[in-house]
Each structure stands twice: as C-alpha cells, then as structure tokens.
C-alpha cells in the first residue's frame, strides 16, 4: 500500500490547520456562511437534514487496519457510533458537529487520511476495482496509476474550479467492477499489439438526471502519455464545458452535444499543441517508486486447494454457502478474496458500526496482510486471505454480524441515504431497501435467484446508481407523496447500459410485491438456473417483466 511521503503528510497537516482557522472564523462571525460554504465543501463538509456530514476520502478504496481503526474511533467519539460507505469508495459520517471537524481532520492526518477531493468542482477521489492486486483477471495492478492520478490531480491549480465535479475510475480487469463506463473518465488498462500496457480512454459517462454511457475516444494511450492525455481532456472540458447551467455542466453533456468524434478531435488537437515544455514527464524512477508500494505482499507458497477449508465446508452448510457466494478466486494459489457484506438483512445498506470497524481492522491485520478495500457497492473486502484461514475468519465475522452470504445477490443493494438524511432527496430510499431485504431474506431463495443488482436512489441525482441497476428504483415526490419509478436493464459492468423506465411509479408499500412478481417471471422465463436475471431480460425483452410489475389487482 502507498505510504505518504513528507510532502503528502505536510499537505494534509497544513490543510487541516487551514480549515481549523476557517471554522474558527465562521464560528466567531469573522466570515459569513456564503464565504465559508465553499471552504467547507472543499473539505468534505456538507449540511444535511439533521446535521453536518463529513465525507472522508479513501483513495481507490484501499486502507489498512490502523486507518479503519481510526474511523471506528471517530464514529465513537464524534459521531453516533457508525459510518456509511459511499459509492465512491469513501466514508461518510452523518452527525459530526462543525466545531469538532478540525479535531477530526487532525486525527485523520495522523493516519494519512483527509477529506480533500470529496466535494466541490474538482477531480474527485479516483476509484478502482476492489479486487485490484488480488484478482487473476487483471493484466496488472491499476492502483499505482490511481495513485499517480491522485498526486497529479490533488490541488491541481488548473482544475480546481471546473464547470462541475469530475470523477475518474480505473480498472485493469475485463470484468469491470469499477463502473468505469459511467464515469466522466473511465480508464481501462489494455495491452497493445506490441504487448505494451496502456489505457483505453472512455469519456462522457455519468448518471444523474441525464445518464450517459461513456464513449471510447482513444483505444490506447501509452503509460508515459497518460497524464498529458488526461490534461488535454480536462483542458477541453474546462474551456468548453458549460458554466451557465449546472445541470448541463458535466462533461457527458459536452461530449454528447459536441459529438464524440469532434470532442476527440479537440482533445487530440490540445494534446498535440502542448509544447514540449508543458509535457508532464513522469520520471520512471518515480513511477517505479510508487509501483513498489503496490508490489504483491509476501504471499506464502501454498497448494491450490485447502483440506482445512474443504473439511469445514463439509461440516457447516452456512459456511459453505458463504464461501460460494462471498469468496472469489485469488491470483495466488491457496488464497481467496473475501467480500464482507455490509448489507445484513433489514439494516441500512453500507452502514458499519464502530465495533464492526474495529473487528474488521483486527481481522485484516491477522488474515489479510493488513489490507482492506471498500467497494463502490458499499461493502468491504479482505483481499488476501489464506483458504486455510477462511473458516476462522468466517466465525469471527459472523460473531460481528458481518457474515451475510449475499454478495451480488438480490439483497446486496446499493442505496443512497435518501430523504432520511439527504438535503437533496425527494423520497426515502433506506426503508425501501430494508423492505426488499426482508421480502427476499431467505438465503436459499436469494441463491436460487442468483446475481441480481438492485440500486435505489432517493432523487434524480442518482447517488444510489439506480440508472445502472439490473432493477433500478428511483424515489420521486408527487404532490408531497413518495412514489418509486422502476427501471429494468441497467448495468454498470463492461456492457454498461442505462435502465429503461418500466412505467408509472409505485407506492413504497407496493414495491416488494411488485418485484416478487418480476422475480417469479424471471424464474419462469430463464433458460436455466445459470441464466442471470440481466441475461434473461436481454434475451426475452422487457415486456414480460413490465406486465408482472403492474399485474396487481
């Protein structure tokens, strides 16, 4: 894992000290709220319905036990004993007092953490594949490049006041777990014909009120040209992106209105026009230094299979199910990648208590070479667990309420905070998720249904990624009443697509039974148990599912 150098550490410490002064001036009345608001937003501090909310960056979703333990401490001391994982692999605390936030930032700085790039019209926290560095599917670990992008983009003077926020995601695996095609820029690491590794550059994806799937504007950019090319994209966006209308200010609108071909021409023109003096020459020594931090940890030389694991599976059906559902193959023989579900049945998706954070920190240190990942689907991952250790790990997770075997199943729902917390929301989302989890609580049934991604947003800003849910649920306000619009066919993976609205919105109480009918239809039409919901939907079309959705009465 990357460790901050003296410059990183100084930046974070100075930023915390600077914000302390800004908070003091706000509380003493030396600056107005209008003057203070952009400053607090640049430090991840939002105002929500009940309190301030502090969003803390977890670069590319990677952290170590010490950092997780600090989150637990902050949850206990400054919040209400829990935190909430976000769809940018970050954490939010929903109840922090403004007067305490300078102390929180000081505490975070002790463990190389901060709230920089979690808000405002800048390049936000770069996200990545939560299995990076552990999966055999990738051509190489993308995280050194996430870190290089982080260092390039942090406080970049030219890109600190963009038309709107800007999100970049990177993956190096064919199976896209980072939703790169619905980002402002998605980078997919590829090999060219010469066997060199570089980046496919995908631009103009995004969700919100005008969802778009990004388009490839460059099939291959060499590593040593990546930052120059990103700068060219950013400059075209900064110059031509609209600033007169915040709803049309994202790069997806510029790409859509300009046309991908013309946008690409503008980027190429900018790229070529950069004088040699402007080129960012990435010293190979620096690339090597950063890459070294992500070198594979000291794996043991183990056999492919584990007798200990097989014996435990034979004895314990619940454990066997958890292994089948939540553990994925590792590139190193004798290891597995463990997803810790933060979606126990009936609980707010993505919430973890201070105790659970402490437990996860301890388990990461003991079983996963001190690495934890946070996923954009609001779960945690222990990326490097020996197969021999899985049963012991499972038992400890189970004791902490962290062993729900539902990764990628119907109850593994992405859900925004909705009207229970959010100042922008029109409708609640957490209670809808909880009702669905309770409806489909039976794990046998979930297992039978198979992979199915439900995503719920409480407003059109789409923080709950409903546009790319196999089944998306959007809360809307209709004359003071909550209704829920259902979409079918969205997906965030390598075949990214925006879901299509099925028809009129439903009342909250009707959503679970309507989706039960949809699921029964799926079970009837699927060609075999192995045909996933999304594949069956694409094969037979939406009509049978729409009919089922509205079949009541």
């Amino acid at each position, binding site marked *: 894992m990357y460790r901050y150098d003296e410059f990183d550490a100084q930046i974070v410490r100075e930023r915390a000290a600077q914000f302390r002064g800004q908070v003091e001036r706000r509380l003493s009345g030396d600056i107005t709220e209008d003057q203070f608001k952009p400053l607090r937003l640049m430090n991840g501090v939002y105002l*929500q*319905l009940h309190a301030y909310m502090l969003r803390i960056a977890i670069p590319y979703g990677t952290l170590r036990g010490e950092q997780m333990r600090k989150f637990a401490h902050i949850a206990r001391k400054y919040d209400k004993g829990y935190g909430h994982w976000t769809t940018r692999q970050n954490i939010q605390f929903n109840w922090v007092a403004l007067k305490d936030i300078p102390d929180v930032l000081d505490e975070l700085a002790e463990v190389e953490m901060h709230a920089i790039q979690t808000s405002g019209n800048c390049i936000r926290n770069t996200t990545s594949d939560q299995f990076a560095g552990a999966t055999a599917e990738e051509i190489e670990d993308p995280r050194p490049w996430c870190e290089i992008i982080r260092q390039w983009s942090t406080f970049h003077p030219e890109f600190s006041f963009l038309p709107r926020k800007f999100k970049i995601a990177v993956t190096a695996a064919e199976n896209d777990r980072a939703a790169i095609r619905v980002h402002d820029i998605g980078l997919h690491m590829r090999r060219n014909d010469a066997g060199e590794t570089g980046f496919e550059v995908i631009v103009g994806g995004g969700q919100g009120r005008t969802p778009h799937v990004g388009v490839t504007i460059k099939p291959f950019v060499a590593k040593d040209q990546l930052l120059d090319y990103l700068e060219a994209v950013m400059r075209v966006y900064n110059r031509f992106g609209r600033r007169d209308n915040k709803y049309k200010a994202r790069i997806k609108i510029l790409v859509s209105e300009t046309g991908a071909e013309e946008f690409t021409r503008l980027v190429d023109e900018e790229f070529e026009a950069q004088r040699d003096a402007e080129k960012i020459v990435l010293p190979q020594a620096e690339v090597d230094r950063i890459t070294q931090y992500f070198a594979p940890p000291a794996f043991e030389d183990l056999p492919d299979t584990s007798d200990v694991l097989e014996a435990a599976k034979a004895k314990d059906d619940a454990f066997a199910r958890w292994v089948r559902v939540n553990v994925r193959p590792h590139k190193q023989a004798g290891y597995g990648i463990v997803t810790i579900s933060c979606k126990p049945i009936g609980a707010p998706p993505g919430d973890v208590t201070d105790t659970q954070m402490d437990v996860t920190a301890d388990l990461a240190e003991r079983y996963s070479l001190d690495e934890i990942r946070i996923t954009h689907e609001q779960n945690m991952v222990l990326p490097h667990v020996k197969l021999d250790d899985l049963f012991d790990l499972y038992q400890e997770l189970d004791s902490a309420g962290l062993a729900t075997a539902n990764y990628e199943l119907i109850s593994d729902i992405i859900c925004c905070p909705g009207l229970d917390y959010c100042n922008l929301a029109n409708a609640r989302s957490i209670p809808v998720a909880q009702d669905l989890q309770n409806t489909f609580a039976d794990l046998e049934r979930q297992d039978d249904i198979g992979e199915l991604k439900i995503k719920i947003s409480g407003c059109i800003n789409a923080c709950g990624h409903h546009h790319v849910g196999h089944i998306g649920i959007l809360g809307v306000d209709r004359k003071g009443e909550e209704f829920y619009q259902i979409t079918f066919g969205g997906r965030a993976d390598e075949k990214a697509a925006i879901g299509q609205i099925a028809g009129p919105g439903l009342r909250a109480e009707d959503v679970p039974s309507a989706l039960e009918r949809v699921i029964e239809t799926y079970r009837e039409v699927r060609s075999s148990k192995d045909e996933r919901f999304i594949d069956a939907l694409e094969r037979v079309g939406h009509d049978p599912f729409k009919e089922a959705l509205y079949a009541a009465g």
Partner: protein
Amino acid sequence: MTSVRPKLKADIPKVITAWDVATGATVYQTADRNWSENIADAEVVVGEAADAALEAAQGDELRILDPYVMEVTADGEVTGRETLRETIRATGPTTHTEFHKAARGVVDA
C-alpha cells in the same frame, strides 16, 4: 442557500427553521428570537410577521444558517407538501430511530 424550498402564500401559518452553526442541529425560531431544537417551542407566524421573523433569522448568521419558512397548522403541527421532509427534520430519520430527538429527550416521544 442550501435549501431552496417551495414558496408559501402569505396567509399560511409558518415557522422559521434553520440549522445551528456549531452543531448542524435542526432548529426552530422561538417568539423571543432564540432557537430551539424542539419544534413545539417554535413561534407560529403569518403574513408580515413571518416576513419579519425570516428577516431577523437571516440576520442571525452567528447562530444559525440557511433559515427558511416551513408550513405548519395554526397549532404549529407540520403540514403541507413537505410534511414528510419536515417531520423527518423535526423528529429524526425514520431509520435509526435510536437517533431521534425523542431518544435524547429534546422532544416528547
């Protein structure tokens, strides 16, 4: 303004609501131009009195932020199009009921 809320007719009863600067807690303006976390303490205002109350709130930046008028009945009960949102602000999230203001004794259960 963080909260751009629907405009309300002059003759509708209202209270002034905002957030406490230091803590971010939801607060309501009282008759003596102070602020309470309990909506039951709020002064119900109508017409020009509501305009004056809001103006006073907007000048109270040291204590509160983003004040706005919200609709209530003549008895001060939350009502109108934003009933759900304002009930959630007044009492707490419908999830996490352990964090309700009533659990802290700020409002009656």
